[in-house]
């Protein structure tokens, strides 16, 4: 049967069938015995049906940033260009007719508390302009931006300053550290602007520097540091303000690949600790998919697609996105749940072999998962294991204990490393209950992208 979040199941699937299965599940501990899978025939469950809570913010987190219809036009004659833009003219047409560049074109999105929202696009797609509109380093030409319900576009100088000092900090691509100030003084910069006295901000700066591992460098000039270290200082300068929202404009693009990967992991670590809301700009799709809770693909000033990394990879919105993700390492991005997971027949420990065999035959599955009272897998029994065994023996005497179990949300890549042929792997939900089986073939086809190409065709 399907072991899922009751609420999620009811949300996602046809009510009658699944409510039935949920009820069945609830009865299992009392009645002792096997159960038939919730879905007749035990067919493949696509990612969209299998609701696995992905990493990221819980549902219903408050919206921190709400952007509607944001447009930014560079050059004079913005009115004409705006009119053209609202008529649906393309960027090239507007450049041709009005001789202005539409950097950001009618972009709307919202970001929730604690989310990492990644905007990915090629250079010139307008992503850096977009992030600069959020704290009004660039003045938006049209549209609205709200941060915690506060209007940013209409904010006066004073409240804008308060926003930048207290809520929204920024990290820059080329670090933007002051070369004439020491590392500690650079980190202190925002605090100095806040008006903190010298000892106070020095203490805070050293704290933050310690957390990024640069306390020993406090009195050096930035030029004495390597690129990766300089960007840590840039990050520390932002973190020193305890920002609720962090804007990161290609922060790791100038770093070499190894350092970049370390920094990405550190950022995820920091984000886990502080639950900061992050808007992250990058041109590196792998980076976007690694870091993002949600990813927006930007092209010519517009969002082409917004979605969770797995959604973008498994269901690209158009040819541009499909082309963009072609070289992506799908195995690392896609969760196990995106491959075709077969709903597993389960048998409670203590069930007789005969009953288990009967259940297995009814579902036409290749193996049955033996579970404990909480639905956690204890072992796996294939047809061959049980069809010739005496029917009155408990099933656990004939099951294999060296099976592979994997959480639905973990990456296909992590499963590849452990999978044992010919046995399928048991797919678990977040609480460790068995929800299905996956075989090597489905893993391979998911990584190979066959489902994606079918979807496009």
């Amino acid at each position: 049967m399907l072991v899922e979040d009751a609420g999620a199941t009811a949300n996602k699937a046809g009510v009658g069938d699944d409510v039935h299965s949920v009820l069945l599940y609830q009865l299992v501990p009392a009645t002792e015995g096997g159960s038939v899978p919730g879905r007749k025939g035990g067919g493949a469950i696509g990612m969209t049906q299998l609701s696995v809570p992905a990493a990221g913010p819980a549902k219903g987190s408050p919206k921190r940033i709400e952007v509607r219809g944001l447009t930014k036009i560079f050059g004079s004659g913005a009115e004409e260009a705006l009119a053209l833009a609202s008529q649906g003219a393309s960027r090239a047409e507007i450049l041709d007719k009005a001789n202005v560049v539409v950097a950001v074109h009618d972009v709307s999105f919202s970001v929730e508390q604690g989310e990492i929202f990644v905007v990915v696009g090629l250079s010139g797609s307008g992503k850096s302009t977009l992030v600069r509109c959020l704290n009004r380093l660039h003045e938006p030409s049209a549209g609205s931006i709200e941060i915690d319900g506060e209007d940013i576009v209409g904010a006066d100088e004073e409240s804008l300053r308060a926003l930048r000092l207290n809520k929204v900090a920024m990290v820059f691509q080329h670090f933007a550290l002051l070369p004439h100030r020491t590392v500690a003084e650079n980190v202190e910069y925002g605090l100095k602007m806040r008006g903190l006295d010298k000892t106070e901000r020095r203490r805070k700066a050293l704290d933050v520097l310690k957390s990024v591992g640069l306390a020993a460098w406090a009195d050096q000039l930035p030029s004495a540091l390597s690129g990766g270290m300089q960007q840590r200082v840039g990050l520390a300068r932002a973190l020193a303000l305890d920002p609720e929202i962090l804007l990161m404009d290609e922060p790791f693009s100038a770093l070499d690949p190894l350092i970049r990967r370390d920094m990405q992991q550190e950022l995820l670590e920091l984000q886990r600790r502080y639950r900061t809301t992050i808007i992250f700009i990058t041109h590196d799709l792998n980076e976007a998919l690694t870091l993002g809770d949600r990813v927006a693909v930007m092209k010519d000033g517009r969002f082409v697609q917004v979605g969770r990394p797995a959604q973008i990879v498994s269901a690209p919105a158009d040819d541009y996105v499909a082309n963009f993700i072609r070289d992506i390492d799908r195995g690392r991005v896609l969760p196990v749940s995106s491959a075709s997971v077969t709903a597993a027949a389960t048998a409670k420990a203590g069930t007789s072999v005969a009953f288990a065999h009967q259940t297995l035959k009814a579902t036409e599955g290749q193996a049955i998962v033996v579970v404990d009272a909480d639905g956690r897998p204890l072992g796996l029994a294939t047809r061959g294991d049980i069809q010739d065994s005496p029917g009155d023996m408990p099933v656990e005497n004939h099951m294999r204990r060296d099976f592979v179990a994997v959480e639905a949300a973990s990456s296909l890549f992590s499963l590849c490393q452990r999978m044992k042929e010919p046995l399928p792997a048991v797919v678990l939900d977040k609480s460790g209950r068995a929800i299905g089986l996956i075989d090597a073939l489905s893993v391979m086809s998911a990584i190979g992208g066959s489902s994606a190409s079918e979807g496009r065709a």
Partner: protein
Amino acid sequence: MASEDVSRIMQIADYLRPSHFGYLPLDAWIESAVKGWLVPLFRPFFRTLQWPIEQVLSGLQALFLSVPFIVVLVLAGLGAWRAAGRGVALFTIVSLFLLDWIGVWNETMVTLAMIVTSVVFCIVLGIPLGIAAARSERTAAVLRPVLDIMQTIPSFVYLVPIVMLFGVGMVPAVIATIIFALPPLIRLTNLGIRQVQGDLVEAGRAFGSTPRQILWEIQLPLAMRTIMAGVNQTLMLALSMAVIGALIGAGGLGLTVYTGLGRLNVGYAAVGGLGIVLMAIILDRVTQALGEKGFVSSRRRKPAAAAEKRKSGAADAGKAETTLKSV
């Protein structure tokens, strides 16, 4: 073509000259505008402008002339040593010694007072104007032709109205020097601030700085080297005005040269000229060294720095300078 044809053509061509029809009396107009309007109306105003310059100049001159030779020698040597190292210090001491020996010490001090006064006023006027030009395209657009005129117009041309408005003497000479020496400082201040990397200014804004804070915390410190180059240029130009200033009553080494010229006394003129050259070299080396060091030197002095750390610090400073240069 016959020769009379050519002369006819030339004649016709001559008819096309405006001077054939008449004469635009621009010189008379300017003459009457300055004499009949500018001078009588604004002379009191210009006279009051003189006052602060007069105060600074006479103060400095009295100071330089009253300090004993040996004190000036030691202080100048020490200053040059701190700023520019041993070589320049040695050169400074030898030069000053020589200047006294060849009998132009007092003239040197008078000229120094004049130069310093001019440069002080150039800094007071030029750096704010340069900042204003850097922050507003409109100001820059207005200033640019003014600076072009100031730099291209021969200084002899404005000596006449200056004499009319301010009279003759040291102060009018200082004013002429300021007009002559001011433009590069404004230009280089403007340039220095505009050259500060955009993302640094952006970072300043992103961290909640006001424009004033960005100016003081980011732009001016980073533009300091360029501004110091402007100060250096201004100083050199001011020195080159020393002789011209003598035409309208300035004293000092310029007057020595001018007198030598008037009397066709080569030796006298050469002594004055040597004085100016030696002063120029000293002042140039010292201000250049100050500009090179810029902000970095003061930043490197951290308390309780061990000898080793100081060494690495020096290396860092060097690196910082090279990055700055590449910027």
